[in-house]
Each structure stands twice: as structure tokens, then as C-alpha cells.
């Protein structure tokens, strides 16, 4: 098996003339939960969007399992922030989760029994099978995140990119999502999460990339998630770290 799930080389990106990412070199080993951590506006979401070809980088690019994205697209899953969609859309939870199976669907083919079954299993894994028939507009924030996670699971990729999966959710959803992440890791899958809660990084992730428009530090949590690196990423002056890290 290829020990590197994905890597970027000299990836740069700008919105208009405003550079957001500069020369990002990132290596994600297979079978880890990697956190991309940094302050607001550091370009965390932008980085994974640029890697997945959802934004066009100025320079550089990403490869997955040693190949360009187009060759291995089925193996790469993406969970966007749940705030990016309109939850008034007329759909039930099961309809949304089934969307995760659409990548293998040909023209004129409807999702049928096997696709629905995969979606139901994914809902089971995220702990919300009872919501399958629920109208999506009636879900809480944590339930929405779990629906999005289930949709990514239904796709059954090898490598997951999740944009802020722990954003604005209740404790139960948090535990459920964490359980899924760790189960995926046990199965040898790789997970990259955009994360901004410094207090939980060490509990959730094995690897971390500290990002602030460029890579400040990357590696295992023990190596890279150090006081000095965090201070540099968050641009905190040396003298003032009272209450910043406990």
C-alpha cells in the first residue's frame, strides 16, 4: 500500500489579487486523522478546496495515492461545511445521504435498492438511523453534520476531507462523529479535518498541520503541535501566552 494518501507540491492560491496560500507542501500519511489547524482566514478550507479541484490554484497541485485526482476520484470523499447549503431543500435525510452514492451512477440510472441500503448503513454508523425519513429542514446543527458525514460514508472513499465537522454541534453529535473518525482510522482509512479548536486537537488527531497562509509546522501531534509552533501560527507575541494553551 502507498504510505502517502495525498500530497501537495508548492500549492498557491489567491482570491483576486489577495494571496491566501503560498507554496503549501503537505504530506498526509495513510491511516491517520490529520488536523489542519490555524486561525480564521488562514486558508484552511481554501486549501482542501484547492486540493480537490473545487478552486483553481495559481500554482502547484495535489496528488492522491500517487495519482492525479481524476484517476482516483472514487477514493476521495469530501464533506463540506453544513452551513453552505439551503436546508429548506425538499428532501428527506435518506435522500441526502443517498447522494453520496451518485458518483458511481451512470446516465439515466436512478439510485435503487443497493444505493439506499448503503445510505441506511451510513446512517446507522453515524448513530441517526431513526432520522432517515425526517425532513432535512427540521434537523438540529449536530444532526445536519451527522447527515453530511453519513453522506460521505455512503460514498465509501479511502480518503476523507472534512471541513469543520465539529463546528457548532452538541456533545452527543461530537462523540458520534469522533467515534466514526476513529473507526475509519482503525479500518486504515485516512481522514483530513479542518479544525480550529486547539483544546481538542490532541484528542482528535494523530497528525497536525499548522497553517497560516503557509505551512508553519506539520507532523505527528507530539512533533508539530508545540507551543512555539502554535504561537507562530496564531501570531501571538512570545511574552503573552497566558491562558492560550493549557
Amino acid at each position, binding site marked *: 500500500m502507498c504510505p502517502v494518501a495525498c500530497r501537495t507540491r508548492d500549492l498557491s492560491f489567491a*482570491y*483576486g489579487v489577495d494571496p491566501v496560500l503560498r507554496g503549501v507542501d503537505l504530506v498526509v500519511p495513510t491511516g491517520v486523522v490529520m488536523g489542519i489547524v490555524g486561525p480564521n482566514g488562514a486558508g484552511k478550507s481554501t486549501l482542501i*478546496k484547492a486540493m*480537490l*479541484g*473545487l478552486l483553481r490554484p495559481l500554482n502547484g497541485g495535489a496528488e492522491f495515492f500517487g495519482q492525479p485526482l*481524476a484517476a482516483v*476520484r472514487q477514493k*476521495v*470523499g*469530501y464533506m*463540506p461545511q453544513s452551513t*453552505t*447549503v*439551503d436546508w*429548506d*431543500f*425538499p*428532501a*428527506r435525510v435518506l*435522500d*441526502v445521504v443517498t*447522494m453520496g452514492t*451518485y*458518483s458511481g*451512477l451512470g*446516465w*439515466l*440510472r*436512478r*439510485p435503487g435498492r443497493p444505493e439506499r441500503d448503503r445510505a441506511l448503513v451510513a446512517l446507522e454508523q453515524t448513530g441517526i438511523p431513526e432520522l432517515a425519513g425526517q*425532513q432535512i429542514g427540521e434537523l438540529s446543527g449536530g444532526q445536519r453534520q451527522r447527515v453530511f458525514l453519513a*453522506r460521505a460514508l455512503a*460514498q465509501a472513499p479511502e480518503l476523507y476531507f472534512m471541513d469543520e465537522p465539529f463546528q457548532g454541534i452538541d456533545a452527543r453529535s461530537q462523540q458520534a462523529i469522533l467515534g466514526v473518525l476513529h473507526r475509519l482510522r482503525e479500518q486504515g482509512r485516512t481522514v483530513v479535518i479542518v479544525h480550529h479548536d486547539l483544546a481538542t486537537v490532541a484528542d482528535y488527531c494523530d497528525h497536525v498541520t499548522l497553517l497560516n497562509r503557509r505551512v508553519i509546522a506539520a507532523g505527528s501531534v507530539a512533533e508539530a503541535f508545540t507551543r512555539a509552533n502554535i504561537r507562530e501560527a496564531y501570531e501571538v507575541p512570545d511574552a503573552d501566552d497566558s491562558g492560550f494553551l493549557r
Partner: protein
Amino acid sequence: MSFLVGTVLLAVVTAVACALPGVFVVLRRGSMLVDAISHAVLPGIVVGYFFTHDLDSPLLILGAALAGLVVVLGSEYLGRSGLVTGDAPQGLVFPALFSVGVILVTLNFANVHLDTHAVLVGDLNLAAFDQATLAGISIGPSYLYVMLGVLLLNLTFIAACYPRLTVTSFDPLFARSLGIGVRRLDTVFMFLVSLTVTAAFHAAGAILVVALVVVPAATAHLLASRLLVMLALTVGIAAGGALAGFWLAYALDAATSAGMAVFCGLCFTLTLLGTRLDRRHRRRAARRQPLPVS
């Protein structure tokens, strides 16, 4: 077929043909884009008339639909450039195209038979005037068959692309991550919308065609909790609205498309009121219940 039956059928078919793509237009929040398209097709129609001398010609409709697509692609391009934000790009592109059309009409270019009134609200009865005959028997207005063709095309497209259309409408970013060609699908879809608007222009005019596209779907959106239900409700509301609106206009001796639009608007208002009252009622009922002990 009697003139009345033919015209009623034309009203219903036009309304349903417009309302079907309207479902995805409403879900993608592109309602005003339809307004922009319906104005921008005017110069296409006039220039197309110059070449074909037939307002019902498929070639004319195709050419004008391409003009409508100019608005879609042009405003997308301007929006992506990051120099103009929000829906300003549409506001920049379509008035210019519409004005070109108006000038061409007033200059009597190609002797096109369009007066300002017809451009704004269309004239269903005039559109139904040319009757088609099969083996010497009248089979209704020939324009009815143009709209039937459009309806069939829309149905086929939606049936063929249903899963893709659904996921791109709900979550375009995720759809792209699945490898779905979202931009290509959008362009084809907007071309179909443009084609539909152009074809319906004759019957509904530049302004009222927006009502035919948007209002039934917006009403169904208030009521439906699943997309297939929303599609079915939209078709029902469009057909019912066309019948009732036609009757309203007939009774009042007013413009048919205006009657249809007014009736659809009324349906929407009543549905909105109904759902609001229902929601308030349910909230009150929920408040009266004791909090669960956890």
C-alpha cells in the same frame, strides 16, 4: 378542434412546460435570472425573424435561446471575475440586450409584427391563431405543437438527469467533488430554460413568463417535503392555474397570460398564509406541551 379548446390546451401546455424547469430554477435561487433571460431573448427574436419571417420557427426559437444564454454565461463570467458582485452582472447584461431588441422593434427592422404590448405580456389568443391541420382536419393551434415539443424536451432532460440535477441544486460543491460536470450541466439546463422562455414568449411576453416559470414552483416549495412531490405539485398548480386564469381572463375579457399570472400569484399568497398560520399553530401547540425531562 374548436378554437376555444385549442387555446385552453395551449395555455395549459405552455404553463406546464414553463413550470417544470421552474422547480430547479427556484431551488437554485435563480428566479431573477429568468427575468434577465426573458428580456435578453428579444433581440434574438427580432434578428431571428429577419432570417426566418416566422415567429414560430424552431430556428428562430433556437437562435433567441442562444441570446438568452449570453446573459447566463455573460453574468457568470462577470461574477467570477470578482469585479462585480451579487446579481449586478445580470443587471448589466440584460438591459443592454433588451434595449437593442426594443430599438430594433421600433425601427421596424425586418417588419417584425411585435408591438410593445405583446412584448411585455404576450398574447395567447393571437399565438393560437395559426391553426394546424392534419388531412384537412383542424388539430388545434400549430403553436400548441411547438410548446408540446418544448414540454417533452424538458421532461426528457429532467428524467435523464434527475439525480445529477438534484445533487447539483442542493450542494454544488459536493456534486463537483463527486466528479459531476456541474458547469456543463448548468449550461445545458440554462439553455433549456432559455429555450422554454423564448418559446413561451409569444404567449406570455417578457415579463409574465417569469410568473409562469417561478410561481407554481415557489408555491409547491412551500408545501412539499420531497422533490418528487414538489415536481408533481408544480405541474398540478401550473395546469390548474392555467385553466382558472384562462377562465378569469375570458370572463373579464382581459389578457390571458395576465389572468394566469394573477391566479398563480393568488395561489401563492394563499399557500403562504396557510403555511404561516399552520406553523404558528404548531409552535403554540409545542409550547403548551411540558418540557421533556432529560
